[in-house]
């Protein structure tokens, strides 16, 4: 027992243990072996990722978390095929990844919907690019729009939607291609807290009902614990896997679990891993020294 009377994050209840056993029996969808990425920058050669090793099983929900600069975005972009790696292998269903493909769907942090297409046509885009007939693509698009609850906005343009709705469309657009794995790069990062928690529950609902595996990047610890089966914790400079945590919080999950001992124990562990000690501030931050001058009456105090 630690001083806060929390159980260890490694303790799993019987149900959770059984669930992980079931997951581990499923086939591996994504396998990353000794992945490394170096690139040249003005400051010389930078090692963004080093020796990343992990695998994701079918219908598993894996979150990747780490401090800024740990290369988590680089990792997901390599998996999507948008960037190349310099060493190691990325295998999807045993086949190496060489470039972007419809077997991996991606949801970006920024709004990546095509502004010139209506919501429905945005979702139809993937199937049409992959040679499906228009009416077939339209039928699929409407089905997926229904699934994310946006049927009535089918003919709206993206700029007419709220941030949360746009990300719903982005999810539908990625899923309509029926990818083996859905890669999500901080998809809810730009949303307000309320919309964000709604979207998290919605994502879990979608994941429960569809044969899809999710790899989700976030910097929000609560979000990672709430969503994930396993959390891949990265450390920065160079980006390496620090620990893979099996989340002991039982499913089905609900926002009410944020205060359970398992949840808090996991969060305490993540905090320990991600903020071990105060990192020295980067130099450009140090150069900024606010020089406060009193601009109000000396008696006009707010505190």
């Amino acid at each position: 027992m630690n001083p806060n009377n929390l159980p260890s994050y490694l303790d799993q209840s019987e149900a959770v243990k059984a669930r992980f056993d079931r997951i581990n029996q499923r086939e591996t969808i994504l396998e990353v072996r000794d992945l490394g990425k170096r690139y040249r920058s003005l400051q010389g050669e930078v090692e963004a990722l080093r020796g990343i090793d992990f695998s994701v099983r079918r219908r598993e929900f894996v979150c990747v978390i780490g401090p800024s600069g740990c290369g988590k975005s680089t990792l997901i972009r390599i998996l999507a095929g948008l960037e190349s790696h310099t060493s190691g292998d990325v295998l999807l269903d045993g086949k190496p990844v060489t470039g972007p493909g419809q077997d991996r769907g991606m949801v970006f942090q920024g709004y990546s919907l095509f502004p010139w297409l209506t919501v429905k046509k945005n979702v139809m885009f993937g199937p049409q690019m992959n040679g499906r007939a228009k009416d077939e693509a339209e039928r699929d698009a409407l089905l997926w729009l229904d699934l994310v609850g946006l049927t009535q906005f089918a003919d709206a343009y993206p700029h007419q939607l709220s941030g949360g709705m746009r990300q719903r469309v982005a999810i539908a657009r990625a899923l309509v291609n029926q990818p083996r794995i859905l890669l999500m790069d901080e998809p809810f990062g730009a949303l307000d807290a309320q919309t964000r928690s709604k979207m998290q529950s919605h994502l879990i609902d979608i994941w429960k009902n569809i044969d899809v595996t999710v790899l989700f990047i976030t910097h929000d610890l609560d979000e990672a614990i709430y969503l994930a089966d396993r959390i891949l914790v990265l450390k920065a400079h160079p980006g390496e896997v620090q620990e893979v945590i099996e989340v002991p919080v039982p499913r089905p999950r609900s926002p009410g679990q944020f205060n359970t001992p398992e949840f808090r124990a996991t969060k305490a562990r993540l905090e320990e891993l991600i903020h071990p000690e105060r990192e020295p501030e980067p130099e450009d931050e140090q150069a900024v020294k606010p020089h406060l001058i009193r601009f109000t009456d000396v008696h006009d105090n707010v505190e």
Partner: protein
Amino acid sequence: MSTTSKWLGSVDGDARKRMLLGIGSFLLPLLVWCLVSYVPFVWHPKVHVIDPGGVDYFQVDMLVDKTMFADEVANMEREHLAVPTGKSANPIYLPAPDQVARAFYNGFVNPPQSKDVPSMPASLWHSIQIIFWGFLISSIVGVPLGILSGTYTLMGRLSEPFIEFFRYLPAPAFGALAVAILGIYDGPKIAIIVIGTLFQQVLIIANTTRKLEVTLIEAARTLGTRNIKLLSKVVVPGILPDLYRDQRILLGWAWTYLIVAELIGTSSGITWFITQQARYQHFDNVYAAIMTIGIIGFGTDLILARLGRRLFPWDRTQDRR
């Protein structure tokens, strides 16, 4: 009205107020012109002779300097001869608004008085054709080249340094060369417009293309889009509203090369009309012709802007002006 809308111009705005300000921006210079033309003590450096009196070199309708007129009046009074009379007037090169308005009306409604003087509509039509062909040829080459240079780094690096150099060469400098190659009629004129527009066009459109959100291209790639489809289904539709706006600006650019272009070889079109009228000192016609160019240019742009809002309902920057 909030401070932000004062600076950025609110998007919805007060349409009536905007309309009034728009009309006002035209009325103000017109008001200044009226003041100078109709208020006798404002400027009016000349005297329009009505009765030459005893001055032997004065004639009816002659314009003389105010001081010279005053000297002659003094002379006549000293010599007890008939004193000349006249009223103060502006120089011949500044006709009053009503004269220009009359010239404008006559230019379009009444047929030209003589055969060898060109009519304004005919000259104008010829000029519009020159602009049309010049801009069309420039766009056929410039738009695809600009998009390709903006999309593919290799293409951009290969084409842009030379274009960057070439655009500093003044288009009119190629006049003599264009005449030598293309003859003296419309060929060299169209060529000057093309030279003046094309190089700017490639650079502007390449820049516009580069500003397309990279995420859109990446999203399309993860959805299975490749090669030429990336260009035709993502890049082109993505930049289309901005491309359209660029083309509007470039069309204005093409008009500014018109006068120089039409002076090359046998002068023609509205330029010939203007130089001919200026030679006969019909400055009212000259002003009417210059204004017609402005009205046509500005009018086309207004129509194109309106059309743009129709064509690109998703682009909200189209309706901010």
